[in-house]
């Protein structure tokens, strides 16, 4: 299968300091790729580099387009929907307004897409007129994913969707993401601390350490790797 997103020798910088030292990474069309690694390994920075939110060098290709020189807004317009660390909820807007913002720059009728989202996340339909800031953490994560999907993206980028959520809710959310990936044929790039769950769902996996890719391969191969099992899966 062809890769929809490909990073070649990507470096990223905060100010003068280099935090990614040449990353190679690919996300298959309609596949799910997971990025693992400890805190500070550069997972979030990799996502931010893809979306033009940090200064980067190297080659970032998305569906035949080069993204390195593009603004974050343009990249979003190309079909990269990024749910950032902390979810990026517009807490002062209502649930429905949050969804409309997702559909703002995208083609297609927002109302139709909103109904589709309410189908995947019925709780959001119940809360549509509430302020997004009043939602629980799990509901806000669902809202963030629904907002991103309102963009009709080709690639969904999720930065630690499980952060701060109860395991039961995490499983529910991952279940819906998996369902959406199959039904909407959207590719997913996932950063996740919960390695066992992520490796179960993903088809490819990369392990980052201090700005380098140290291991990569099929998710199954990584799940069976004794060193990864010891460091990240705990058995």
């Amino acid at each position: 299968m062809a890769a929809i997103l490909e990073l070649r020798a990507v470096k990223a910088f905060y100010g003068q300091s280099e935090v990614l030292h040449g990353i190679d990474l690919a996300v298959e069309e309609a596949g799910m790729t997971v990025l693992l690694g400890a805190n500070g390994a550069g997972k979030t920075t990799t996502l931010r580099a893809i979306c033009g939110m940090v200064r980067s060098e190297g080659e970032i290709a998305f569906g035949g387009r080069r993204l390195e020189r593009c603004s974050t807004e343009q990249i979003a317009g190309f079909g990269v929907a990024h749910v950032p660390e902390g979810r990026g909820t517009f807490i002062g807007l209502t649930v429905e307004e949050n969804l409309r913002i997702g559909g703002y720059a995208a083609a297609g009728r927002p109302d139709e897409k909103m109904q589709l989202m309410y189908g995947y996340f019925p709780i959001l339909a119940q809360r549509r007129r509430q302020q997004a800031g009043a939602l629980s953490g799990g509901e806000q994560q669902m809202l963030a994913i629904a907002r991103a999907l309102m963009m009709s993206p080709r690639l969904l980028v999720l930065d630690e969707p499980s952060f701060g959520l109860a395991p039961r809710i995490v499983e529910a959310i991952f279940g819906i993401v998996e369902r959406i990936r199959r039904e909407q044929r959207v590719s997913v790039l996932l950063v996740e601390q919960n390695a066992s769950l992520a490796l179960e769902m993903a088809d490819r996996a990369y392990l980052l350490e201090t700005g380098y890719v140290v291991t990569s391969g099929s998710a199954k191969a990584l799940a069976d790797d004794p060193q990864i099992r010891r460091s990240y899966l705990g058995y």
Partner: protein
Amino acid sequence: MHQLLQQIFSGLAAGAVYASLALALVMIYRATDLVNFAQGEMAMFSTYIAWTLVDAGLPFWAAFVITLAVSFVGGMAIERIVIRPVENAPILTAVVVTIGLLLIFNATAGWIYSYTLQEFPSPFPDRTLFGALMTTRDVGVIVVTLVMLAALFCFFRFTATGLAMRAAAQNPESARLCGVRVGRMLALGWGFAAAIGAVAGIMVAPVLFLDPNMMGGVLLYAFTGALLGGITSPVGAVIGGLIVGVTENLVGTYLIASQLKLTVALILIIIVLVFRPNGLFGTAVVRRV
């Protein structure tokens, strides 16, 4: 009693002007965390444009609409040309830029139009209503302000661009990730603020007479109104502006000489900052460090 009602009503008319300018201040503050000290002088300059157009023989309301359009474009241009380059600079740099703008507009107006007072035409006939309880001028100013506020409310509440502007002000990074062009939204915000200021200037000019320093006191009252309402709340800015207008008028009539009225604003600012720093409707800003 009659005099009290009279004073309250003319206070509301003055307050409507403060409310408009306060709203302009709040719009820019919410979008960029910046108090635009040039807001008053921008409004004054807009008023001179209206004056020039009326002087050239245009009907008042035609001049009004053209002035609003020119101010809107001018506000966007100011954002692009002088504010955007200091967007990522420390906040004091941007504040100094707005103070510089204040001086530039003031001096330019003085240079083009001189510092002498000009009479500015009122679009409303000068009559009294309900047994001299209120004047048609006051009613006119209040109605124009209310119409403008209603139009702004509808724009921000019901249009996609209005929603995108609110989103960009609230969480710029997340808005960018949704494909909202945040820079353009900021420019639009400056355009709106300039146009709102123009309305305030045109409404107040027949009372104060037009001169380059006309808006100095008005800006102080507007700032007090914005602070009283909570500097982050548009509704608060409007209500705060009205409260300041009425308070200023009543205190000036019953308690102190009207020459001291401006002091009322300063005292109000101190009271708000000491006892209720978030104003009546503002929210405490929590920053994670």
